[in-house]
């Protein structure tokens, strides 16, 4: 399996010269202003790190549904069906309930990568509502995971979710008796 080439640390930071305490937003027009990874760098003296927010696993059909918030960090998967290098756009597809679901990925920060059409990929990035295309994922990480057991991965994601909801319910239950006297 060929791994796509890793971007240099902090995706594209090399392109952005930073000095002192100044915040830099890149002048690339396609990027939305709120894009979390405009990496606020402080000088070395402070060493405070601004970590990106956690990318929670979502299914491709959830990403596409339009129910996701702009700027939300997600992690999802799909088979690479097409790649347009001039527009830095890749499309991942997944099957669910006998329907094909597509996720469009903006690959600006993970280029160059070796696109293997038909291979399974994992993408990690922020949701972006693009005028023409619709929902897009601004990728920070794009990994080829061809050979992955998709069914097992879906099961693992569902298992994790049901565990969290179960735990929340338990916590609500233990909190409630205190109020309901």
């Amino acid at each position, binding site marked *: *399996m060929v791994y796509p080439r*890793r*971007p*240099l*640390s*902090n*995706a594209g930071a090399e392109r952005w010269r930073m000095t002192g305490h100044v915040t830099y937003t890149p002048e690339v027009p396609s990027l939305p202003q709120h894009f979390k990874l405009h990496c606020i760098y402080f000088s070395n003296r402070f*060493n*405070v*790190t601004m*970590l*990106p*927010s*956690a*990318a*929670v*696993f979502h299914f491709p059909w959830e990403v596409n549904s339009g129910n996701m918030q702009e700027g939300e960090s997600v*992690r999802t998967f799909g088979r690479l069906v097409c790649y347009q290098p001039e527009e830095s756009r890749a499309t991942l597809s997944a099957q669910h309930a006998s329907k094909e679901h597509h996720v469009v990925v903006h690959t600006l920060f*993970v280029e160059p990568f070796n696109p293997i059409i038909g291979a399974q990929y*994992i993408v*990690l990035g922020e949701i972006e509502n693009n005028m023409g295309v619709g929902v897009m994922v601004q990728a*920070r*990480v*794009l*990994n080829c*995971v*061809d*050979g*992955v*057991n998709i069914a*097992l*991965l879906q*099961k*693992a*994601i569902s*298992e*994790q979710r049901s*565990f969290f909801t179960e*735990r929340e319910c338990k916590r609500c239950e233990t909190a409630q008796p205190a109020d309901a006297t």
Partner: protein
Amino acid sequence: MQAAAMDPAEEPPSMLWGLDPTFSAFARLYVRDILQMTESTQVPGSIYFYNMHPIYKVDVLGTVVYKREREDFFCYGVDDGTGVINCMCWKNDLLKEREDPSKTGKHSDGAQGGFNPVTELKKLKEAQQKRCRLEIGELLRVRGPVKTSRQQREIMASTYYKVDDPVMAEQIAWMMEAPQLYRQCYDKPLQLQTSVSGDSAISSLSKAINIIKDFLKQKSVTRFRPYDVQDLLQPLISSQPQTASADQEPVAGSSGCQQLRQLLKEALQVLQDEGVVYRRVKSQDEVYLVTAEDKDLQIAVKDVIREDSKREKYAEKGCHVLHILSAVRQRSSLNVSKAALELVLKSLECNSDIISTMENHYIAF
């Protein structure tokens, strides 16, 4: 980070933390939980609490989403899908970029064989680099204590390495395992207080056994009858809290006696099974002999083994325990139990009077 400090009233005392098995383990919590767990008031900055479990070191598997490198360390931001946390990963000497020109000069006098220390060292350095130097998007495994520095929680990595996971098998296994661990360990409430609620039936029996054993040893008792040791167990019965306090007075006497006799009977049975005591004659008169003090028995066993070892049949292989048992019973008419005999054989072997040739076989020394 909405982490709060622990309520001092609720926090278990630090003396009892070691009783929790998860305290000594690298806890595999979700990063979200690591960031939200409450800080201890007794040891702030180092010890944290998740669901009343004291935690100080954790184990995380996640994607690197942030990287900062300095001369001495890497700082990786690790995202496991529930949260992102900084991991401080110190470099060891091999990773530090120190080009030593003096070393490269000496290689010509290296060993003529296949082993060239300089190239081997280079290979080691490369292997270390591969394992420790990660880029964004790669999978990192980190284990280490959690520290709070500058209001941020970090993991000070004691161990960290890149995980090769081309088909996501590791990540999927981790995701599947985590809820199980939570259900079995972390979400289970912790019982740190030792139960003060009186002795259970099992523990009073073991206490009785120990009391009798100590008594027999101290007084070098050779033989005894049950009533000799009965009074020893009295304190165990009276310390048990009575359930029916109302009608305690008239009933306490008889039930107390019965309990005592029952306890004694059970204790003596266990001692017999262990071989500490045995009964020579099965009669109404319950006389118990203490194995360790029974000189006759020891002499009898020694004689049996010595005589039989001379016979060709047993010379090499040794006498089997059961053979010794039947011989002792026949010749000395000592109705000894197998357990008692085994104790005797053990003590004889410790004294080097006999040797064990095989499992369960003995010959004279």
